[in-house]
């Protein structure tokens, strides 16, 4: 058994192998499909509130450290933002005798953005620096807000090469939003009762 505590260091070895074999992108999609087991239904039914529910559990179980008590995973009904944390996963791999895979961080937008697309949300994911354990994941219900956020981020000095998004999937996102609207309305009514 690889202890669950050490999974991310095994993951790091997998990424090194896949990078040598030009196979990272395809693998991210496999992990995304696996993660649907945890996220797809929750995000589909509850939207942003479901995301908050999911990441609150992750923050506790993965021992995510908040940089400031005032900042957490910031959400309102239209967006979720998580740029105020120290990533425990990269932190462990910066403390890894096998050395960190320089593309380690890419797996996060790689698996999570396809799930946002499937559940009708826009994501602007800024990795900031591949060797610093802080990134910024921002999810929006409204396309214009996501686009504006991305432009502001770049204007503020962010490296466009480290920003991943699904803004080019607007048609698919809008279609999924329409498809999921009755389910979300049903869920909201259930919550009110």
């Amino acid at each position: 058994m690889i202890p669950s505590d050490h999974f991310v260091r095994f993951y790091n070895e997998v990424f090194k192998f896949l990078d040598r074999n030009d196979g990272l992108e395809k693998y991210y999609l496999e992990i995304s499909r696996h993660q649907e087991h945890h996220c797809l239904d929750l995000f589909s039914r509850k939207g942003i509130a479901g995301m908050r529910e999911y990441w609150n559990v992750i923050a506790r179980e993965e021992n995510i450290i908040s940089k400031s008590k005032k900042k957490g995973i910031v959400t309102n009904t239209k967006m979720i933002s998580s740029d105020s944390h120290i990533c425990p996963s990269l932190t462990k791999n910066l403390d890894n005798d096998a050395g960190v895979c320089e593309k380690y961080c890419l797996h996060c937008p790689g698996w999570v953005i396809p799930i946002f697309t499937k559940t009708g949300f826009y994501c602007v994911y800024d990795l900031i620096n591949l060797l610093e354990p802080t990134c910024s994941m921002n999810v929006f219900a409204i396309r214009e807000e996501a686009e504006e956020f991305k432009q502001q981020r770049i204007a503020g000095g962010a490296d466009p090469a480290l920003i991943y998004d699904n803004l080019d999937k607007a048609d698919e996102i809008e279609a999924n939003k329409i498809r999921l609207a009755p389910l979300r309305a049903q869920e909201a009514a259930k919550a009110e009762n």
Partner: protein
Amino acid sequence: MLRYQENNQLHRDFHGTTNTTLDYIADNYGVDALKSILQDTGEKVYKSIHDKLAAGDASELLEHLNWFYFREGAKYQLTVEPDEIKLEVFECPAIRHLKKMGLPVSKHACLQTSEVNAGMCKNTQWESSVEVIGEGHCIQTFRKKEC
């Protein structure tokens, strides 16, 4: 002393991602590639265990086995002799969690044990083996090679 101190909350769902990854690598790149990644993990990630074994010191290996199987809530028995370490795991915590999540257990699941252990022992005076008794039940053996 353990190189990687882990005392915080456990995120057992990582066993699910490991399981998916084992199948993915084996299906797309072959079982030998999977074994090679797992052995690298044993040798390089657990470099301090490996280097100590190479120097004839099994103390960190023992601490590692004991702490992480205890921490994951396994029922196990660790038997230590000067030239042999045996760990009998009666219910693998990884397999138990996969079942709890309703995920099928990869047919390569036990390689994560046998190959990581082999990597830890690579080019040392120790060798490892894993005897699978039944699903989730195995005996892991580390034995000093005869000179």
